[in-house]
Structures are given as structure tokens and as C-alpha cells.
């Protein structure tokens, strides 16, 4: 949980899913979280984009399978020299 990206994502997840006890693990998927349906997913992604100041393409969005994918994508987006 010391991963700074994961820490910031956790607070976004808690806000979006209205659950302040939510703990993020890389293998966490939509099936594991109450209320994570397709519309909440969009709200989640938009909130992440806004908080991190990045933009995902439609393809990137639809490829995300679990929290680990999201963290990896965020790190890729934030890596120096990568145009986002």
C-alpha cells in the first residue's frame, strides 16, 4: 500500500463506490466490488482521469480488467517522456 499511485487510486475508489473501507489489491475486479457496474466504471475512469490529469482512449478503457491493469496504465501514462 506504499505505492503512491495505489494510495491515490484508493481514495478515488472510495469516493466513487461510497465505501470508505475499500482496500485495493492488484487482482481486484468489478465482480469483487459492490456497485461496480458499467456506468460506475465510467464514472470511476472519468474520476481517475480528472484526478491524475490524464486521458484514456476508448481502447485503453475497455481493456482494463482489474486494478493491477489500471495501476500499470497510470504508471505508463505518468512515465517521463510519454505523451498522453
Amino acid at each position: 500500500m506504499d505505492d503512491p499511485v495505489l494510495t491515490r487510486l484508493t481514495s478515488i475508489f472510495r469516493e466513487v463506490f461510497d465505501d470508505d473501507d475499500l482496500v485495493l489489491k492488484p487482482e481486484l475486479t468489478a465482480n469483487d466490488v459492490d456497485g461496480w457496474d458499467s456506468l460506475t466504471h465510467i464514472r470511476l475512469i472519468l474520476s481517475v482521469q480528472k484526478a491524475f490529469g490524464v486521458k484514456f482512449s476508448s481502447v485503453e478503457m475497455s481493456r482494463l480488467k482489474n486494478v493491477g491493469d489500471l495501476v500499470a496504465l497510470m504508471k505508463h501514462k505518468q512515465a517521463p517522456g510519454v505523451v498522453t
Partner: protein
Amino acid sequence: MSESLYTELQWLPRPPEDFAKRCRALREAAGDGGREVRALASFGLDENKLARLANAIEAVRGRPDALRSLTPFRLGILSNATSHFMVPALIATAARYGIALECIEGNYGQLMQEALAADSAVNRARPDAVLVALDYRGLALDAPLGSASAVESVVERALDELRVVRDALRRNSGASCIFQTLARPVEASFGSLDLALSGTRRNVIDLFNRRLSVDLAAKEDLLLDVAGLAETLGLSVWHDPALWNIGKIPFANAYLPIYADLACRLIAALRGKSRRCLVLDLDNTLWGGVIGDDGLEGIVLGQGDPQGEAFLAVQSAAFALRERGIVLAVSSKNSDEIARLPFRHHPEMLLRENHVAVFQANWNDKATNIRAIAAELSLGLESLVFLDDNPAERRLVRDMLPEVAVPELPEDPAYFVRTLLAAGYFEAVTFSPEDQKRADFYQDNARRVALQAATGDLDAYLATLDMTITFQPFNEIGRARIAQLINKSNQFNLTTRRYTEAQVGEMEADPNCFTLQVRLVDTFGDNGMISVIICRRDADTWHVDTWLMSCRVLGRRVEQAVLQELVSHARTLGITRIVGTYRPTERNRLVEDHYAKLGFTECECPVEGSTLWSLDVANHRDTNLPMNVVRPQV
């Protein structure tokens, strides 16, 4: 200030740190949570916070009485795009307008089926109204280019379909419809020619919207002008093709809060909950500057000055609201005759006394005055909007009268009008001849209302301001500011005696002079030096030579605090009597009763026109004041 005014609902106060906690508490509380739900909804909430509040509302909805103080409203939603994402936003936003909203969604894209089948979910729910949330992509609006008659028939066919939907809903559920106008896409085919050429997207959608609005004007149905909203925000940001592709989401999520607010204003208007009266502050709201200090020549108003034009625009907007039936009132901390001066004699004033139904200019707190205005007009507090540039006044009114709408305002008066009107307080679903006459009906030449004693819960409010008052004798550091206050304060100034900076310096060392410089810090910031007192000793008596205070901190009980400070020093120094003089000027009527209010008794005054007051130090009793006192040691 731009698009964010609308996306962030900037006229509403920002949500508090403990917003999530209060949403949770709502779920556990017993009894009527309606007031708290409404209070939480009245912050500028983004999509996530709206969803959180909606979840809390859903959690308590089943409990009898949980939302008792809110007006129930059932809204059916039919759409040819995804509407599900709007539901939490609508439910939470409706609470802002005092409505407990319940949404019943039809199946995606099944407008006709839902309307025609008597046993569809929407019809069975017997909704109060049905929102028909249309997107251009779900209507057959393709027309050949260059044929006006073909466009006519395409538009008429689409409208016919909606007429069938409307009639079926009316028949099967009794509900009337709220039809959305279509936000046209940004992508043009020719360019500027799109506007003129029959059959382009733009041309067809423009005609559709126009026909839809004309059609509805004759019926009981309502129009939700989404096209207008999208244009206000910008079509290029309103439409997000990626979101449409992913989930048939018809517009960018960032605009859900303002979309929902627009829809709920309409529902509120339908339930008679629109606001009817605009209460205006004067100084720095209707003109620049302070009439009591700057005088008729000093206030800034009118053409040729950017600030003056901004304030004129505020007057112009108020005037236009009055034309459409909104009643205007004034609440100002001023003496009545001074406050009326610009209305009577300033050539640039657009508003005149005969435009103002109730004119409350006095030194009571604004909550008391606003209550009096509502009573005089026989309007509920929830009919009032209060416009004031001063954040402290706004917060006081919001705290004490939560029913009154109090828009947050930006620093720059150039944006006052846009902010006030963006809030949509005065949404109306009809305009009748009575509306045209209403403002006149209330008119009785700027009446003034006699007030009850100031409200008792003022101390509770003051306690929340976290005030710290600082007392110090005159010193070198404060000298320049002390002299400045002595030479410019007119209103709260008992004797209006002027002294130079050198004279002030002499008082510092004079053993017969007792002096105080007073500062006040509160939750809004540091008010700096706000009061100056000079007492001169004569045996065991103090004569109050000077007592002045900044009007900014009126109604904060600073005067009482100063008196308690004086009395405590008097006791230490063996002073038994404090004697004060009131020397009237044209500007200081405000403090006519200053000493009487502080418990002094009037004695015979040797000077014509002035009054003399005396306090027996032994008789004074301290009270608990809502502030911390600090006395820095030199």
C-alpha cells in the same frame, strides 16, 4: 470564471470536509432527515458526491417519515440514450429544491413501447411527470439536402411520434411530459452554409427544436432546454464521442450536476417552489463603495467606468426580473435616509424607490430584516433570494435562514449578474398577465417594516465565527492606522473628533489618557484594527473622548466587549464613573443610542444638541461574549 461557473455550480457553497461523514450519519439517524438531506444537497456537489448523497437517500427512503419534510415527486424517465447514469444525480439534486424524487426508468430506447403499454413500469408507477430525454441520434432525422418540404415532413414525422408518446402517457398514467430539446452535434458538413441549407443536421435540428417548443406552448407539457444548456457550455465539450461509443452516454459526465439542476428547477417550478423575490444589498452590490462613507459623489455607478458599468448591470438585471414579476426588496446596513439618497438623487441609478417593494435600511442583522421582508410581502422564506457581496453576511443569512437562497458571488462585480442568473432561482413554467402586474401589486412606495427585537440565536451564529478580539493601548506600531481611523470614520463615531498622528503620539505618553486600539480576527480572516477608544481622566471619572468602530464588524458585539474591557481597567485604576458624549453629525445617527444600549443613563448635557451619558462602574455586570480576548504584553 467561465464554464466552471456551471460545471461546479459556483453559486452554491463548496461541500464541507465532513460531507461523506454526514451522508453516513443520515443513514443511521432516526426521524425526519429531510432538512439535513436538503442542507447536504445545497452544496456544489460533483457527480461522485451526488451519487453518495443519492445512495444515502435511497437507504432511508423505505423508513416511514425519513424524508417527511420534503415534497414527494415521481418522475418517469424515457430515453433513446442511456438515462440510468442521470438517476442518482437527479435524486440528490431534487433535494436541493426540497423534493424527495423517485425515478422510474423505462427500458433503453423503448419510448413508444413504454408509453403505449398500460402495464409498463413507467405507467404503472403513476408518475407525476415523465422526462422524455431525447438525443438526436435516436430520432429519424435524416433528410435529403436542399429540400425544405422534405425537412418539414421529416420533422413533422418525428414530432408526431412524440405526440403519440405524450397522448399515451397521459391516457395510461395521467402524467404530463417534460420534453428535452436536442443538442445538435458540432460536426458540420459544409461549414457556415449548414445554417441556411435545408436538410443539414443543423438545419433539421433547429427546426425540430423550434417546432417542439411551439407545440408545447399550447399544451400542459414542459420543455427542458438541453440545446440551450449545451450551447451555453459549448457543444464541443458537451458531446463526448468516446462516451457515446462506450455506453450511449448522451453528454459528458462533467455536466451531470448542471443538467440535473436544470431538470430539478423545472420540477420545482411545477410544484410552485420557484423563488419570487430578490432581496438586494446596497453598498458594493448595487453600486461601488459605501454610501455612508463615500457620499453621493463618491459611489461608483454608471457608464464610462468598468466598475460602474458592472454595478449598473446588476441593477439592470434586477429591473428585468421585476419586469417579469419578481418582487424586489432592499436589505442594507445603513440609515434609512442615507440609503435612499442614491435612489432619489443619483443620476445613474436605474432602480428607483418605486421599484422596491420593501426597503429595510437599518442597523439590525440581515436575518432579522429578511424575515421582516418576507412577512411584509406574505411570502415564505423559501421564496426569497438574497444578493450580497459580503461573505460574512451571506453566511449569517444562510446559517440563520437556511430556506433563503444566498448565491456565492465572485470577487469581480462584472460577474455578479451571470452568477445570479446561472443559479436559475426564478425558473418559471408559464408567464401570465398576472405575472406582469405582480411587482406593481406589491408596490407601496418602498415600505419600511417595523422590526421585532433582533433574533435570539444570533449569539450561536457569532460563536461559529471563532472571533478573537485584541486590546492594546496606543503604540508606535498602531499610530498611523489609529490616526487614519480617527480622521475617516464617520458613521460609528460618537464624537467625530479628529486628531493628527502627532497628537495621537502624545496620547501614548499622557498619564491622564487611557487608550485602546482594538483588532478582530474571525473565520473569514483578519479584519485588522476595527475600533479606537480614548478616555481622559478627571479625578475618579473617565470622559470618553473618542469611541469609533468600523461598520464592517457591526452586530458582532464588539461594543460590549470594549465596554467590558474599559470597566475592568477602570476598576484597576480606581475609576468609578465612565461618562460618554454623543455629538450628532449628518453621518453618525447609527450610534445615537449607543450608550443607552450599553446600559448608560442619560444626564443633563451642557452642550446644545449633544447628549451625555454616565455609567456607574460598580453597577456594571459582565456577560459572556462569543469571542476570545487577547491582551498582548508590551
